[in-house]
């Protein structure tokens, strides 16, 4: 009983979100004239309240609901990041500034958004194979619906169908792996699995664990859009409404990395002060290095020839997943910290880039890069903002994107000479990426437009949110020492 009471107390952020989700559904079904405003206010209020509660609970650490989920600093960080991401998307992308969402039901959108947020948070705290699978599927199923939000649009539905089929195969494969893991270890709890594997393995069993790790990785790879599970990514990002694309490119990806870290760090490794020990000498890091190298290379090379902005950013987000995975492969506290810094930076730079793309679409009705020439003269502010977001994605100092890259590369190099080639591949990839990001800038600033058009007039709210995201890409550097110190606390266990 005591266990349940403590669990409920530590579970409050999720409970708040669930309550608000139900309220939003109720409010939306009243069909009153004020229901859209009420749904929006409720959603923003609920997310803020949950965020406050997460921050208040940041110090606690322990298992809840008989070990199904866990509350610890790492989970607190990811909860705050995931709830914050939903909040940012809802505030910056509205039904007014997204041309694709005009005239569609708003209550359902907020309800779905809250549902994805809850499941993202659960994914970041899962401590049991059953919980892990349930949370991952809940994120997937709600995102399928969000991608198909434009009911009458063929692209949106086709994107969703491709997403579902890829998702079903990947998560099905993962589930098969999880069932074998349960059979091998006799337990579904991650700490218990680690204890079993640490007690020693026969050679045959070690081989089985390798196979299981590969099967399970299908699910994580799908969520984080890692090669070879990335095929859905460009199509889904292009077909989905842009606010949904922006959301999918940051939140579920971050949750995917949270669960990947939890599985590989907590299930298949033992924490130490420096580099962590592999459990049962299962060297999964080597496999992940290969995946990470392939992910960044495929993402960057495929992005070179894209002309649709959403598609281009989709490939760029695949490449970034490769860099972020470096933090997982480093298998140390510094690696975990680097991953957190990269995810935070990625949140503000990628959302910023998508916001600019949405605003250009609102005013021009196009996602095509070939329609971007002349934007510099028509809206210097929007061009400046896009330049900062792209330079940040490129990893140019002194922007937050640079700090993200700096820390993941440092965490890798720290592991010793056998990892140097890996860091070098990452650096070469960053150079390839610079080409296509710079190409967008060149198109916006230098290329001459076919015809003179009047200047773009941004709405006040849009300009504000662009400026805020712009500030978030530059200002954190001023307080870097403090940010680094507090993130180190969250990365430790």
């Amino acid at each position: 009983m005591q266990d349940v009471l403590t669990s409920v107390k530590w579970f409050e952020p999720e409970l708040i979100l669930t309550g608000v989700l139900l309220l939003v559904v109720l409010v939306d079904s009243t069909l009153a004239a004020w229901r859209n405003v009420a749904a929006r206010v409720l959603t923003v209020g609920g997310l803020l309240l949950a965020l406050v509660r997460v921050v208040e609970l940041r110090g606690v650490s322990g298992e809840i609901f008989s070990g199904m989920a866990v509350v610890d600093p790492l989970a607190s960080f990811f909860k705050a990041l995931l709830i914050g991401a939903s909040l940012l998307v809802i505030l910056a992308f509205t039904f007014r500034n997204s041309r694709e969402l005009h005239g569609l039901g708003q209550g359902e959108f907020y309800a779905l958004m809250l549902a994805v947020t809850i499941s993202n948070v659960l994914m970041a705290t899962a401590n049991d194979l059953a919980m892990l699978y349930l949370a991952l599927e809940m994120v997937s199923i709600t995102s399928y619906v969000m991608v198909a939000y434009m009911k009458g649009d063929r692209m949106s539905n086709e994107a969703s169908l491709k997403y579902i089929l890829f998702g079903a195969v990947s998560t099905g494969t993962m589930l098969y792996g999880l069932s074998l893991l349960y059979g091998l270890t006799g337990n579904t709890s991650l700490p218990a699995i680690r204890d079993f594997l640490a007690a020693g393995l026969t050679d045959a069993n070690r081989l089985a664990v390798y196979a299981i790790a590969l099967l399970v990785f299908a699910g994580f790879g799908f969520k984080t859009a890692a090669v070879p599970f990335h095929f859905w990514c460009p199509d889904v990002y292009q077909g989905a409404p842009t606010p949904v694309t922006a959301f999918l490119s940051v939140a579920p990806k971050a949750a995917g990395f949270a669960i990947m870290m939890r599985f590989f760090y907590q299930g298949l490794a033992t924490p130490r002060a420096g580099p962590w020990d592999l459990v049962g000498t299962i060297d999964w890091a080597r496999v992940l290095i290969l995946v990470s190298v392939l992910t960044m290379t495929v993402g960057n090379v495929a992005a070179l020839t894209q002309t649709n902005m959403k598609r281009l950013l989709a490939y760029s987000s695949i490449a970034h997943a490769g860099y972020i995975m470096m933090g997982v492969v480093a298998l140390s506290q510094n690696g975990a910290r680097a991953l957190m810094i990269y995810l935070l930076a990625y949140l503000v730079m990628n959302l910023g880039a998508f916001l600019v793309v949405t605003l250009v679409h609102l005013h021009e009705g196009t996602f095509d890069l070939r329609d971007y020439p002349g934007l510099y003269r028509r809206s210097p502010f929007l061009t400046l903002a896009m330049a900062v977001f792209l330079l940040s994605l490129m990893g140019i100092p002194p922007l937050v994107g640079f700090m993200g890259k700096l820390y993941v590369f440092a965490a890798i190099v720290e592991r010793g000479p056998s990892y140097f080639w890996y860091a070098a591949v990452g650096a070469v990839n960053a150079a390839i990426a610079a080409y296509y990001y710079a190409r967008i800038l060149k198109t916006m600033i230098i290329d001459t437009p076919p015809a003179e058009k009047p200047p773009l007039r941004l709405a006040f709210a849009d300009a504000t949110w662009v400026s805020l995201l712009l500030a978030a890409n530059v200002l954190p550097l001023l307080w870097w020492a403090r940010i680094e110190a507090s993130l180190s606390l969250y990365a430790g266990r």
Partner: protein
Amino acid sequence: MIALQHYLAVSAVLFSLGMLGILTRRNAVNVLMGVELVLNSANLNLVAFSRFGPGNLQGQLFAVFVIVIAAAEVAVALAIVLTLYRLRRTPNLDEADILRG
């Protein structure tokens, strides 16, 4: 006497058949059937391991949740297939090709 190996063999066959169905079928509904086979092969594994293994019920509990998830997933998938059918008048997957590049 039916032992654990028999269950595992059946589940492996189910998994392979499911994957084969997913990869070779053109009709979206048939592909979803393949997905069901994959999920149920994992269910069979979980229940069999729970019965013959350590004697705890975690596996059976897991299987119950998987059944629920499978139902939810297919409900959403069929809804999307239906919407797409209304828009294109075909359930074939290789005709869903407007997104490419």
